């Protein structure tokens, strides 16, 4: 249950960030409806943001692992 809550909180935070970043980028002048061009931009932006999240996550976790390995080897 804790694990599920964690995954949910993580997904929720990701959605919030995408909402904030992509709304800013794709809908600079909000009109009477979400135009199809704006929707296409949102789709692309969302995909890129999730990819960016994955790249950042890999880089960060990789760094943590290298540093904990180094603690038993050379300096940092």
């Amino acid at each position, binding site marked *: 249950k804790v694990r599920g809550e964690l995954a949910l909180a993580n997904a929720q935070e990701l959605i919030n960030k995408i909402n904030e970043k992509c*709304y800013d980028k794709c*809908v600079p002048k*909000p009109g009477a409806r979400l135009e199809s061009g704006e929707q296409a931009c949102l789709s692309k932006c969302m995909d890129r943001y999730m990819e960016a999240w994955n790249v950042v996550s890999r880089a960060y976790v990789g760094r943590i692992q290298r540093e904990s390995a180094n603690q038993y080897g050379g300096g940092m």
Partner: protein
Amino acid sequence: RELAQFLEGENAKARVQQTVHSLTDSCWDKCISKVNNKLERGEEACLANCVERFLDTSVFIVKRLESLRGSGGM
């Protein structure tokens, strides 16, 4: 039990107000560049549209996430 209901209602109200504060913050930046003697017609429309489109965006993202998940795309 009525107290619990009352508190639940107050909680919901607090969440709504918090969202209104945060939407006003970001829509103010999007819609108001210069401070005038009154809120111009265009600015008022921009603010209302900003709220509606932000919520549309939210719905759009959640639906797309669900469809990506369904198609095994994620």
